[in-house]
């Protein structure tokens, strides 16, 4: 066989071809195979946010405003939802941020009132936890009450020295009494003693300073016989160390 004939015969092998069906099927199979290195295209946070915003079909220059509004709504949502959180819950720290902000924004004279409201809230939470039998939240709740009471004691000390008007003093007294009842209820349900020593001391000294000042002021005022009698009783109670009752008498004769 000559070289030319051989090459001609070799070229005849070009008839060998794969089946058309196999060719099509294999291509489809390869292209449909999940690739090992197939990774979702990395999207930046900005792009992700932009994609979310594209749902609203807004003009580009309005996107920052819409983004701010969405963030704001989201934060409001989280804060609102956190208001129902109890000590030990995930969102409770968010709730605490809101509470701290409220205290910071209050004036020095208003602060004890706000602190007392907060203490009331904490006692409510503690009672709720006790009623719902949420054992895991209990320790955190007791701690929260004690901390709120200590913070209240501090602000009470400040305001007692500086003095405040009669209306606020009256409100504070009402809150003291409400807290006392709540504390008793919580202690009764739980069978524990809440550490309120510092709070009780501050409360007492607050009453003492307040009553002392009121008695001093009332001495110089013209009083009718009935008021004179009440002042006398208040003085006696004050001398016996019963400042709370003494204050109650003063409130009766003053307002």
């Amino acid at each position, binding site marked *: *066989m000559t*070289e030319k004939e*051989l*090459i001609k*015969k*070799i*070229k*005849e*092998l*070009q*008839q*060998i*071809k*794969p089946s058309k069906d*196999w*060719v099509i099927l*294999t*291509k489809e*199979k*390869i*292209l449909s*195979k999940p*690739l*090992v*290195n*197939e990774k979702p295209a990395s999207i930046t946070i900005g792009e992700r946010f932009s994609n979310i915003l594209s749902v609203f079909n807004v003009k580009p220059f309005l996107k920052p405003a819409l983004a701010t509004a969405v963030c704001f709504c989201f934060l409001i949502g989280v804060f609102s939802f956190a208001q129902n959180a109890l000590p030990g819950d995930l969102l409770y720290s968010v709730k605490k941020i809101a509470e701290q902000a409220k205290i910071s924004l209050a004036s020095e004279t208003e602060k004890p009132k706000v602190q007392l409201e907060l203490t009331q809230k904490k006692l409510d939470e503690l009672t709720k936890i006790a009623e719902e039998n949420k054992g895991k939240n209990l320790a955190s709740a007791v701690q929260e009450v004690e901390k709120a009471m200590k913070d209240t004691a501090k602000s009470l000390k400040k305001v007692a020295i500086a003095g405040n008007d009669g209306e606020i003093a009256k409100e504070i007294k009402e809150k003291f009494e409400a807290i006392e009842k709540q504390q008793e209820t919580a202690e009764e349900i739980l069978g524990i003693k809440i550490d309120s020593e510092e709070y009780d001391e501050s409360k007492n000294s607050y009453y003492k300073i307040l009553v002392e000042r009121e008695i001093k002021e009332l001495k110089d005022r013209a009083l009718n016989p009935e008021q004179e009698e009440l002042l006398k009783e208040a003085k006696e109670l004050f001398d016996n160390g019963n400042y709370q009752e003494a204050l109650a008498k003063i409130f009766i004769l003053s307002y």
Partner: protein
Amino acid sequence: MNNQKKFSKIYDQYIDKIYRFVFLKVSSQETAEDICSEAFTRVWQSMDKGTKIENPQAFVYQIARNLITDHYRQNSKIKLVSIDNCKEIQDNQPNLEEKSLLMSDINEVKLALNNIKPEYQDIIICHYLDDLSIPEIAEIMNKSQGTTRVMLHRALKALRVVVNEA
């Protein structure tokens, strides 16, 4: 052009040639199909990894050649077992279609090709069947153009000897 379109173009352009190249080397339709499928899957994976394929033809042929080498290496490791333990073993006798092919001139050359060095097989298939130029073959085989030209000459001579002896 996205990767899928690029791959489709390469696949359509080279699938017939690669299949023929592999089939003539392994002499089995099933094995040839498997190797081709694997070769193009690797091309697709490389494209996905971001590998820049400057010469798709050389790239596909090189993958196919490596897979054929792997195939023969694996087959050499296959242990022989007694026929008594493999009653349902496939009958390796040529079927009617293959028998008729055996009779033809095509098969004569095909059989002769299987009896020359693998490198000679490659060079003959690439040059005379796939119409690749000497520089293209040189790139696929990682050889200089001069060496490739000499090899082609020797390959054709070796094939002639085998055909004439048959």
